[in-house]
C-alpha cells in the first residue's frame, strides 16, 4: 500500500484535466497535491520543493512529458522520484519510448480512480522489490 500523505505533482497544460486528475487522486485519499502546467514549470517546482510522486501528461507545450521525464532521470536529486505518465490511446505505441526513458508506469485516458489506484500500487510494489 501507499502513504496517502505523500506530496504529488500533477502536470498537465489543460486546467480541466489537472482538476480531473486531482479529483481522482483525492478520491484515493491524497490531499497534498500541487499542479504545474508544463514540463518546464514542473521541473522548476520539483527542484525547489520536495515531491514524492509525479503524475504527468505527455503532450504539452513548452516542455512535454517525455522531455521532462528525461530531465528528471538525469538530475541526481530527482532521479528516484516515481513518475506516472498519463497517455491517450493514440500514444500507446509511444509508451515504449517513455519506458526506455524511465517512466515508472503509464495510465491510459480515460481512467477510473480504481485504475489509478492499481497503477500507483504497482509502482510502489516494484519500488519495494
Amino acid at each position, binding site marked *: 500500500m501507499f502513504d496517502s500523505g505523500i506530496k504529488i505533482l500533477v502536470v498537465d497544460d489543460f*486546467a480541466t484535466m*489537472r482538476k480531473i486528475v486531482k479529483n481522482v487522486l483525492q478520491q484515493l485519499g491524497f490531499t497534498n497535491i500541487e499542479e504545474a502546467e508544463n514540463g518546464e514549470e514542473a521541473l522548476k*517546482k520539483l527542484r525547489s*520543493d520536495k515531491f514524492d510522486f509525479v503524475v504527468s501528461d505527455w503532450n504539452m507545450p513548452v516542455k512535454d512529458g517525455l522531455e521532462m521525464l528525461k530531465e528528471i532521470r538525469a538530475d541526481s536529486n530527482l532521479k528516484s522520484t516515481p513518475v506516472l505518465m498519463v497517455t*491517450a490511446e493514440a500514444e500507446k505505441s509511444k509508451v515504449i519510448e517513455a519506458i526506455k526513458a524511465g517512466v515508472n508506469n503509464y495510465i491510459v485516458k*480515460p481512467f477510473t480512480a480504481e485504475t489509478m489506484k492499481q497503477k500507483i500500487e504497482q509502482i510502489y510494489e516494484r519500488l519495494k522489490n
Partner: protein
Amino acid sequence: MSSEMDEILQDFIVETEEILEALDEKFVELEKDQSNKDLINEIFRAVHTIKGAAGFLGLNQIVDLSHASENVLKKLRDGLLSPSPEITDVILESVDKLKILVDKVKNNDKTPEDIDSLLTKLKKIEEGQTPISEPIKKDEIKEDPESKVESEAQREDKKVASVVSSNQKIDTALKAPLKQDTEEHKDKPQVEKTIRVDVERLDTVFNLVGELVLGKNRLTKLSNVLADKYPNDPDVINLNEAAEFLQLISTELQTAVMKTRMQPVKKVFNRFPRMVRDLARSHGKEIELIIRGEETEVDKSVIENIADPLVHLIRNAIDHGIEPPEERKKLNKPTTGKIILSASQEGNNIVISVLDDGRGINLEKVRKKAVEKGIVSPEEAELLSERELTEFIFHPGFSTADKVTDVSGRGVGMDVVKTNLARINGSIDTLTQQGRGTKFTIKLPLTLAIIQTLMVEVNNMVYAIPITSVLEAVRIDNSEISSVDGQEIIKLRGEILPIVRLSELIGFNHSNGADSHYVVVVQSYDRRFGIAVDRLVGQDEVVIKSIEGNIINLNDSNIFAGATITGEGKVVLIIDIPAAMEFIKQGEAQYV
C-alpha cells in the same frame, strides 16, 4: 452528478470554448504557412486535449469527433498528408461541430448531434482521399460567421471574465491553474497570479463601488455645508479631512475595479481571421487581414457592443471594398487585398479602425442615389462636400451596391452600425478615396458605466446630458428663437440651429416663461441641434444606473438613457441624445 464533477464539467466547457476559439486563428495562419509543423502540432494538441478530458466526462460524441480530427491532424503533422484548403475546410467544419457539441453540453441538451457524415469525411481524408473541392455554399456562410460571432461574443463574456493582474497578458490568465480547494501553497506565492471570477460577482462589486461613490459624494457635499456653517469647529475640520481622504480612496478604488473589467479587444478580433478567410474564399477574393493593437484593453461592456459593428464593417470591406484578383491585376494593384483592423487607446477613448485597400466609396454614385431617394434636391446635391456625401452611407435604407449580395445587404447595415455605436456613446468617421480604399474609424469611451455629464435644470428639475455629446452652451433671449415650419430654430454665429425644448422633451408645456434660456448645443450622428433649458447647473461625473423597465416621458417616448444619484442624494435622469434628436424634424438638423 456530484457537485465536484459538475464543477469540472463547467470548467471543461469554458476551457474548451477558449481552445476552440483560439483554433480559428491558428487555421488561418496555417493556410498562409502550410508547412509550419509547430502550428499543426499546436492544433493537434488542442484537439487532443479536448478529447482527453471529454473521455472522463463521458462526452462520447466529442471524443469521437476530436479523435477523428486528431487522426487527420496527426498525419498532417507527420507529413503523411499535405495540407490543402479542402482539408482545412473539413477540419474547420469539425471545429465548428465541436463548438456545437460543447454548446449542447452547456445547455444540457442531450439530443445527439449528427456527426456521422463529418466522421466519414475525416476518415476519407485520413485514408488519403482528398475531398472533392466543393466551394462553400453561400447560404451556409450567411448564417455561419455572423450569428456565431455575435452570439459567441456575448455568450462568452457573460459567462466568465478573467481577472488579470495588471502586468499579465490575458493569455497567461487563461492557462492559469484553477485552485479553489483549501490546499496549502504558502511556499509558492508566484504561482497564483490569476484567478477566474464569475462576471456576476464582478458586476456586484462594480455596482457596490458605484453606490459607494454616490455615498461619498453626499458625504463630501454635507461636510462642505458644515464647513461653511462652522468654519472653525475642529470636529468639522476633522470631518472635512476624513471626507477628503475618502474621496481619494474611493476614486482609486473605482479605477482599480474598472481595471478588473478591462479585457483586450483580442476577444473580439480573434474571430475575424476566420470570418475573413471564409468570406474571401466564398467570394473568390484574395484578402489578407492584418490585426494591430489587439492587446488594447477596454471595458467588458464595450467589448460586448463592438462585435456587431465590426462584423458589418469587415463584411462590407470584403464584399464591396476589395476587388476580385483579376480586377486588381488590371488596376496594377497587388492581387491580394488588405484589410487592416487596428485598435489603440487615446486618452479615455479607444479608437478602432477598419481600413481596406479596395475600390473606395463611389461618391458620384452616392450623390446620384441621394437625389434619387429624394434626400436632397439635384441642386443641393451638387453643393455637397465629399465629407457630407460619405455621411449618406449611414442614412437608413441607403445603398450604393448595385445588387444586394448575401454578405452585406448594405444600407441596412451602415445605419445600424451608426445607431449601435451611438448607443454606447461612440462615433464613426469615414475616409474614402476612390480606387484607393476606405477607412472607418470608430471612437468609443473606455467604459460605459461612469460618464461626465452637464447638469441642466428645467421646471426646477435637474437632468443630465452626457458631456461627450455636448459641443457648447450658449445663452439666448426668447426673442432669438424663431420658428420655421413648426420647427424652432436659433441663429448661432450666422448658422441655423434647430432646437428642442427640454421641457417639451419631457412632456411639459412651455416652461416657466422665462425671458432667457440656455441652449446646450449637442451632436449626435454627426448632426447638431440645441436643447433649450432654463439653467445650467454644472458638470458632474456620474455613475449610470440602468432604469428598470422603461421610464418614458409624458409623450410616451423613451428619451432617458438611465439615471444617477447626485451628491445631494437626488435622482437625476440622463437624457439620451440620439433619442432626443428624434424630436427634431428631419432635414432640419444641421450636418456638422
